[in-house]
Each structure stands twice: as structure tokens, then as C-alpha cells.
């Protein structure tokens, strides 16, 4: 703010003329996920408010929930985070084949998760409007499911592009990185969800 700053600043040369600015997309994705995280946080807080103020939670007459299937689903989704991480490491080593392999595997695991969830829905003994617990259950898992679906499509898109020769390399692989970050996020949300809805 001082006058002396000015002359100092004049030294900044002509160096960067019209150069492309560095890539901030990963930072942007992170910011976007902060917003997404707050969306889920808001819904979680609402759920907690319901569960903590209700005399009995879940409300009387809510059928018992099966833990086996969602448990398996959880394990699948969590392990897929490791798988997609392998893909990230592969492309950093310029290994496009590895990238394809691990992405395909992640996509498969995501698809199994979604199928599992649909199967669970169709076998539950309560519907969306049965009671407050049922409504929160469907809205939270459904909303998360949509995010898994979006992540899955994202992964498939990256996979598709990886078949274009030279599209991803050790230096340029924003799509891969973004898909990986997003997938980890979806995973993290599920962990909280699982604890809230099934374990507590």
C-alpha cells in the first residue's frame, strides 16, 4: 500500500504476455464439492433434528431394516474408492491401459451398488410416505443414489475418452482427477449416511 510498492511492482515484466492462465479446474471442483457437502450436511442436520426430538425413533411401526445387503453395498462402494485411486496413480505413470482397467472396475462396482440399492428399495416394507423415517430414508438414499449415478456417468465418459489416443497423459488428466475426487466425495457421504440411517 505504500508508494514504494509501486516502483517495486514496475519490475514485474512482460513475461506472461497472453499466456494461458494455469489450470484451476481442480480447485473449482473442490469448491463445488464444498457446496455439495453443505447440501448433504443440511439434510443430515434435518435428519438429526427429527431423530433427536422424536420420542421414539424410528417411529413406532417402522419395520426392521435388513443390514446384510446395505452392508455388502457399503463394502463394495468403499473398496471402489481404492480402485479408482489406482486409476489415478496409473495415469500419473502414463499407464493409460491401467487407467482403463481400473476405471472400468470402478464403474462396475458403482453399478453393482446402484443395483443393490434398487433391489433393497423393492424389498422394503415401507414406502416414501409411510412415516417420517421412511421419507427421510428414501430422500437421503435416493439423493445419494443420484450422485452415485452422476459419478458413474462421469467415470464412463472419462473411460470413453481414454480410448482417444493421447487424450490423457501423465501431465494432462483433469477428467481423471475430477472423477476420482468426485467418487471419493460420494463415498464419504455414503459413510455418514450409512451410520445415520442404519447404525444409529
Amino acid at each position, binding site marked *: *500500500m505504500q508508494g514504494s510498492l509501486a516502483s517495486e511492482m514496475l519490475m514485474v515484466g512482460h513475461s506472461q504476455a497472453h499466456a494461458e492462465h494455469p489450470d484451476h479446474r481442480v480447485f473449482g471442483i473442490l469448491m463445488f464439492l464444498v457446496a455439495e457437502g453443505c447440501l448433504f450436511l443440511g439434510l443430515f442436520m434435518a435428519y438429526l433434528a427429527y431423530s433427536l*426430538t*422424536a*420420542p421414539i425413533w424410528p417411529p413406532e411401526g417402522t419395520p426392521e431394516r435388513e443390514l446384510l445387503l446395505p452392508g455388502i453395498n457399503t463394502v463394495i462402494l468403499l473398496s471402489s474408492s481404492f480402485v479408482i485411486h489406482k486409476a489415478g496413480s496409473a495415469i500419473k505413470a502414463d499407464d493409460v491401459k491401467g487407467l482403463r482397467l481400473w476405471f472400468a472396475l470402478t464403474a462396475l462396482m458403482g453399478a453393482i451398488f446402484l443395483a443393490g440399492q434398487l433391489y433393497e428399495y423393492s424389498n422394503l416394507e415401507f414406502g416414501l410416505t409411510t412415516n417420517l423415517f421412511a421419507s427421510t430414508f428414501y430422500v437421503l438414499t435416493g439423493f445419494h443414489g443420484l450422485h452415485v449415478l452422476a459419478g458413474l456417468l462421469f467415470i464412463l465418459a472419462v473411460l470413453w475418452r481414454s480410448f482417444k489416443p493421447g487424450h490423457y497423459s501423465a501431465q494432462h488428466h483433469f477428467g481423471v482427477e475430477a472423477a476420482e475426487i468426485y467418487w471419493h466425495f460420494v463415498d464419504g457421504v455414503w459413510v455418514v449416511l450409512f451410520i445415520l440411517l442404519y447404525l444409529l
Partner: protein
Amino acid sequence: MSALSNIILVALGILLTLASLWYGQNHHLLPESAAESAPLFDSLFNSTMTIATGIFLVVQGVLLYCIVRYRKRRNDQGDGDPNHGNVLLEIVWTAVPAVIILWLGLASLDVYQAVYGGADVGGHIHAAMAMESSHEAEAGDPSYAYTPAVLPGKDMGQPDLVVQVQGMQYAWMFTYPDSGLVASELHLPLNKRVRLDMTALDVNHAFWVPQFRLKQDVIPGRETHLEFVPTQLGQYPIICAELCGPYHGVMAGQLFVDTPEAFEQWQEEQILAAHPEGKAVALASESQPSSAFATAYQQRLGISPSELSSLRLHSGSLPSAG
């Protein structure tokens, strides 16, 4: 700084203080007060107004002074004094508001304590919409009891009278549990501690008596409370202060503060009227809430009968919650 400017500053300070003190007491911004706790509110409000007036005068005064004193003179193309900070000043104007705020916070807490000390203001959620009358159980419920951090709470003891209040689109209904009386007007005995147990049947409403300086939302599915002691005989409006539909503005009730004798007499009359003729008069409000409200409203504003019936039509055709 010269002696003269010191004197001027001190004089201005005194003037400012006097002006603020005067306005704090003479703002005429509040209606009469008619409940035990209302004077507490008024004195807090007056002190706050005093402070606010002071801050207002300081800020606007300095602003005006700058506008006059530091206006650009003709032919002066130069810049102002290139001063860009003064740590001491900054500390002062951070600390002074902080102290004022602290004082105001504590004073508010104090008044809050005194007004709401014993009341279970938080209310609790019903399992279902139905009115419950198990207040005794929750009176001892410690989860809502406020533990004062600064000042000891005043123990207000049990209320002398409990009235159940129901808000609905566009009327108030009052049940006196001791006598089973149901009325569309709220009658209260003078100088007795009253507790209102309130709930709503459809949407949110709010129970407000400006002369008591008290307000509480009335919420479907949970019970909220107000506790107070009316200290002035008279008739006061009960205003619904929460948007509850198109006719929210005309959802008014009447509150009568009677002498204990008049209160007893009113109660007896109502019961007499209700029983022999089979719930005709007193319960009229239950079956026809809109008419009760409209009558009360008619008293207040002098509405024409045709408007009245159109009002009734509208409120009758509104769907209920769920």
C-alpha cells in the same frame, strides 16, 4: 489540541448525553403497558433507545461535520490528508462497541430471565396433532429449564390460572380446563399469574398482546407457553402476528382483564349460558369460529354485514392442513 476545542468537545459530549437521555425517555413509541413484566421491557427499551440515539447522533454528527468541514473548496485540485490508519483509534472503536454490546447483552438476559424465568417457553412436540393436557408432567422436565449463567432466575411458582389457547385460521379459542368452559374471548383476573398453553389446529399463528409486550408463536403439533400477570383492567387486542393465510390480518381476538369478582361472574354466566340451553352460547365459537372472530373484528373496525358474510365464505372454503 487547544483548550477551546477541548471545551467544545466536552460541551458537545454533555449535550449528546442529555439529548440521548431525553429521547430515551420521551420517544412515545410504545403503547400503554398492562402486564407485570411490561415495565421491565419498557425500561430495557428506553435504555437501548438512549444508546442507539447516542450512536446515531455521533455517527450522523461526524458525517455532517465532514461533509461541511471537508468539502472540496473551489479551485482546490489537491488530495486530502494521506493518513491511512491509527491503531489507538481502531482499538478504541472496537472496544467501545464491544463493551456496549456486552452491557446490552447482559441487560437483555436479565430482563429475559425476569420475564420468562420459570416458564417452559420452549414448548415440546406432540407425538400427534391432538391437544394433550399433560402439562404437569413436563413442568418438571429439566431439559428446557434455563440455567442462568449470570443472574439467579426468579422462581415464579405455579400459575393461578391455566388457559388452553387454540389458534386456527382465523380465530382464537380459549378453554378454561378447571371449568371446561370454552370461549372466543379471553377473560383474565387482575393481578393473577396466568399460563397459556397454546397450540394451533392448522398452520402457524402467533399470540401477541402489544400492551403486554408478549408474543409467542402458536404452532401445530407442539405446545408453546406464555406466562404473565395482567396488571391493568381493560380490554386489549389479541393480534395474530404470524402469517396464516389471506385473512391473517383480521385474525383478532379480545382480551379482557377483569377484577376477580367480575371474572368469576363472567365465568358463571358463561357456564350457565352453556349448560341449560345445551352448549348454545359459549360453544358457539367452537362450531363457528369465523363468526366469533368476525364479531370481535366487527367491534374493532366496524365492518359491514355483507363484508362479514363474504369473509365467512372465504374462510369456510379454505382447505385444512394435511
